[in-house]
């Protein structure tokens, strides 16, 4: 079932909601569930995830059938929790000094049995698009004029779609052509994930939920990592950019039939090689942990802002 198909949360039954939530309350509070972008349930060597435990399944279709919740919404919630979960010490556990972690249960509590949540992820995507097009967005200086124009065109088409208008496929094709011509692979390195997100979502709003979550996860990771640069020296900022250049080179490198990278994409990137070396990573580990800790409040503010938006959309559904 796609996110846009009609469905009823918890089959419309408050007793089903109570029973399913009971499965996750205690293990979530005990931090034995680990948020993940996959449905993890009884996989070898992998801790169960919140959503995997809620539906007691690894299967996307079975999850939706059992819970009446779009699987993409569940995985989006886990995507928002994952970066904070990893950085919050166990003593700051749920209900303590890490309010963002309480979102793990809050979003489930906020669901009205019988609600159709199919448009929550698309509306959240629209919120993100409008946010990243704002001039005060943290990564705004790294979004090229071409991609900004693509983003504005997508937002305009989504608005018309939500107003009930049928958009001609040719209009979408023009936007995608512009996105491909703008070429995310050549975007400023801090803008690469924004450009990729814009390229991926250049489709009708009702059709993007499944792909949005994966590309949003990379975008959020990149955004939170950027917030760390406020606590870095100039040299550390340059090193971070070289690391991103290296990651991007690996991500876009040509691959053979088996998916292995042809050649060494870092061969011509000695600075990327240096900062990605085990020696560099080991020697800077302690300092980077201090940077992450210093940036933690700013990161939590970002995630809290996003979870508040998502909670509002769930409550409105």
């Amino acid at each position, binding site marked *: 079932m*796609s996110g846009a198909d009609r469905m009823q949360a918890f089959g419309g039954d408050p007793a089903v909601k109570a029973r399913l939530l009971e499965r996750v309350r205690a293990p979530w509070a005990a931090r034995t569930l680990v948020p993940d972008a996959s449905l993890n349930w009884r996989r070898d060597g992998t801790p169960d995830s919140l959503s995997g435990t809620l539906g007691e399944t690894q299967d996307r279709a079975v999850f939706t059938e059992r819970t009446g919740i779009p699987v993409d919404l569940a995985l989006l919630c886990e995507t928002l929790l994952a970066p904070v979960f990893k950085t919050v010490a166990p003593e700051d556990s749920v209900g303590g000094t890490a309010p963002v972690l309480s979102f793990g249960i809050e979003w489930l509590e906020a669901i009205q049995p019988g609600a159709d949540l199919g448009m929550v992820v698309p509306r959240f995507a629209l919120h993100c698009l409008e946010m990243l097009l704002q001039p005060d967005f943290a990564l705004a200086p790294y979004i090229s004029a071409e991609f900004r124009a693509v983003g504005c065109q997508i937002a305009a088409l989504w608005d018309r779609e939500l107003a009930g208008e049928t958009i001609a496929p040719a209009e979408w094709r023009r936007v995608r052509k512009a996105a491909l011509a703008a070429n995310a692979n050549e975007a400023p390195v801090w803008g690469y994930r924004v450009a990729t997100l814009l390229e991926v979502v250049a489709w009708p709003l009702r059709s993007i939920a499944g*792909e949005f979550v994966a590309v949003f996860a990379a975008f959020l990771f990149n955004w939170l990592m950027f917030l760390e640069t406020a606590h870095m020296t100039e040299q550390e900022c340059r090193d971070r950019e070289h690391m991103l250049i290296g990651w991007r080179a690996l991500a876009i490198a040509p691959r053979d039939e*088996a998916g292995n990278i042809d050649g060494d994409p870092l061969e011509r990137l000695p600075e990327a090689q240096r900062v990605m070396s085990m020696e560099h990573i080991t020697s800077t580990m302690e300092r980077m942990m201090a940077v992450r800790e210093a940036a933690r409040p700013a990161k939590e503010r970002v995630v809290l802002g996003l979870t508040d938006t998502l909670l509002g959309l769930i409550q409105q559904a």
Partner: protein
Amino acid sequence: MSAEVISVSDNTYTVEIAQSEQPVLIDFWAPWCGPCMALLPTIEALAAVYDGEIKVVKVNADECPQLADKFGVQGIPHLVLVKDDKAITLRERTRTRLVSEIDGALARIMHPGA
């Protein structure tokens, strides 16, 4: 978004793929493969984009080793576009880029001389 992604096995290969009048997009996957699961929404979306033009199927590479061998699958996810005896491996992994790649591949398969 009503187009269906059909599961194909060694047993149903002939009917669903070899004898298909439409080009067939095959997604070789396995349930343990994270990148395969991440790609699934894109494959489902492609089925809707090409509804009526291309048949989109998925093949569990663990359960269908003969099919995986036949199409030279060495790693998953592995996407291949097939028409009659022609097969083109697809390398992109987002809907936007795959549509661009598939449209080019379709032109080569359907109008090889053009």
